[in-house]
């Protein structure tokens, strides 16, 4: 899932975080302390340190909560996120989700898609109706994530993982990705990241 060169860094961050959690009970931590760990990968300024890591700042609170819940349940697999989420209670997840949702969405400086790529992405959207859930301008709402301006590599990987069911915590998304040709998914990732 993550590039090997970065894995050691992530592992160190996670180890430190887990140790921190062990030393200080979660209920005694402030929201800033609870989320300190997250910044190690997702970025202290909201910009993820790696292109395959999602943006959390400005993301929909309901979506962040559901992902944390699913990591804890094991419905969404991640060697990094599962140990972190397993220590969180429901209210912690909701608090963390709200905290990040209130932050401004960072500009990752990704270029707009070319006219041809955009046309292909728009056509794919019209076919399967992405905006039916992700809403106008792909801003998301509630438990549905914002896609506009998300990292391109992360978007591409998630769509591919849904398609192969490697990401198994939303079979409806898997069904929609399976009904979409891989080339269209490439176009969608480029288009969405540049919005």
């Amino acid at each position, binding site marked *: 899932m993550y590039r090997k060169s970065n894995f050691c860094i992530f592992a160190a961050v996670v180890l430190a975080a887990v140790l921190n959690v062990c030393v200080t009970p979660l209920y005694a931590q402030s929201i800033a302390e609870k989320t300190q760990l997250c910044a190690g990968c997702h970025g202290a300024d909201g910009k993820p340190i790696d292109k395959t890591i999602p943006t959390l700042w400005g993301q929909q609170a309901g979506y962040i909560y559901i992902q944390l819940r699913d990591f804890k349940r094991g419905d969404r697999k991640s060697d990094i996120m599962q140990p972190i989420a397993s220590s969180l209670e429901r209210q912690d997840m*909701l608090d963390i989700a709200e905290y990040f949702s209130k932050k401004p969405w960072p500009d990752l400086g990704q270029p707009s898609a070319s006219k041809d790529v955009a046309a292909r992405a728009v056509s794919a959207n019209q076919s399967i*109706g992405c905006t039916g859930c992700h809403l106008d301008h792909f801003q998301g709402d509630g438990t549905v994530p914002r896609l506009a301006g998300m990292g391109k590599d992360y978007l591409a990987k998630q769509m591919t993982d849904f398609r192969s069911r490697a990401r198994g915590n939303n*079979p409806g998304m898997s069904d929609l990705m399976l009904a979409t040709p891989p080339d269209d998914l490439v176009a969608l990732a480029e288009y969405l990241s540049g919005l």
Partner: protein
Amino acid sequence: MNRFSIVGAALVGVAGLLAAPAIAQQETKQEPKSASGQAKVSPVTQQQLNSADKNSTNFLLTNGNYAQTRFYPAKQIDRDNVKNLHVAWIFQTDVKESLETSPIVVDGVMFVTTSFSHVYALDAKTGEQLWHYNHKMGPITTYCCGPNNRGVQVLGDLVYLATLDSKLIALNAKSGEVVWKTDIADPEQGYSETMAPTVIKDKVLIGTNGGEYGIRGFVKAYDAKTGKLLWTFNTVPENSVGVWATKDATGRDMHRNIQAEKDQLAKTGDPYQKLGGGVWQNPAVDLATNRIYFVVGNPSPDLDGSVRPGDNLYTDSLVSLDLDTGKYVCHFQYIAHDVWDLDAVSPAVLVDVKGKDGKTIPGVIHAGKTGHIYVHDRKDCSLIRFSEAMVPQENMWVLPTKEGARMLPGANGGVEWSPIATDPGQELAYAINLHQPMNYFVENSPYPNGKLWLGGAFKAIPTEKQSGNITAVNYNTGKIKWQVKTPEPMIGGILATAGGLVFTGEGNGKFAAYNSSNGKELWNFRAGAGVNAPPSSYMVGGKQYIVVGAGGNTQVDFHRGNNIIAFSLN
């Protein structure tokens, strides 16, 4: 501020400039604003609601009256003068998203809603905002097809609203303050609310969305004064298997593998707990028999029937209940074991119809996603007839495949949620339709704990042209009387009036009036955003208005806006 106020203010301003040297100290005062945050609205009585069909001043129920005819009895605006219709006022809401609201009007006060469950009280004469209820949405909402809200209903001095995070709320009609609030169901399990409640005899009736999330559908009745739950009818019974029907309501074979389904039933049991069956449009109320009639949506997962053996009762059905108890009276299933999401969503309408023997009887009609209008006997829900197809039908009922199988209509219909209108004097039902050629795909996956559970996908075919139509059907013969073709699929709703007109809008922003007898277009207006909401009508100060939301549509991705537009003559 209405347009006359603007002109008046401009004239006063010019006069002030001209006279300035002589009367430099004179001040020009504008009229004081009306009491901000207050709506002068009289309590709505049950008697008023019962006779809403004859009320040519107010618009009291989502679909005009308890029979849901969407036939408005005022006729000041008619076929001769509708060409003079113009904008009386425009109100811009704070929410630029899909607008599906049916404006409710009570004695000059209008109540409209927007996406994300906002409510506004407006002066129906001027469009001035009287109050705004901004619902504090919980962090968890689970819904497909847009953060829609279709409106409110008023009884007494309370305004009833159901929210996207699945709460039922009573607001003070004068101030918009919350009087009581109750949880309907858990949004984390896939439940949400987009419909307007139906309030009748001190009960608030509400269904639920969630057919794409493996919910178990219901209609619930709450005490209108306190919010206490009175009864629940589960739209999926514990025995949902049915009669292993192999043909649809029109007699076409649905290609079910009954033996495979029976084997699955023996292995996994009745799938009733996660079978879907949402109800997200208002029930019609038969005041004479104290029964309600509503339609039940698709089974979960939408396209994969392998995990849900049986007819999947009462999905894709017309259902009638006793209003007082919520007990089952009768049902009719249009499509057993649906694997195309061609379910029943456009609200049921009560009209007198000709029975099979030609005698006039109380009937109930429903416009299907299949493109047929179905006519039933109200006594036992049995089917009397179905209309000619209003849209092209091809390859029905081919089963969805992994590679995708083409079939018409597409999964949105036919007639989507859009309420129909009727004109009993002409024996006509008016429906708006979509034509979207689609491929149907099937996939298999286990129940995902409240997540999107489609069991495949329905995918519009990019190379095939989409379109729409407005169709008038004689419900006593099943024949199409007239049809107007539109360049884009139609979704939103329609209103018929005693002025011999029907009003409806399109996704491209066109809002138009048609002669209700022959479909001739008599007037149109360009709203600048999709007009995908059902129009209402009302009278204030002796003047008839037509009002409609122009906010576009999420589901079909029509251009978004945030306007409520009222039209009148002169």
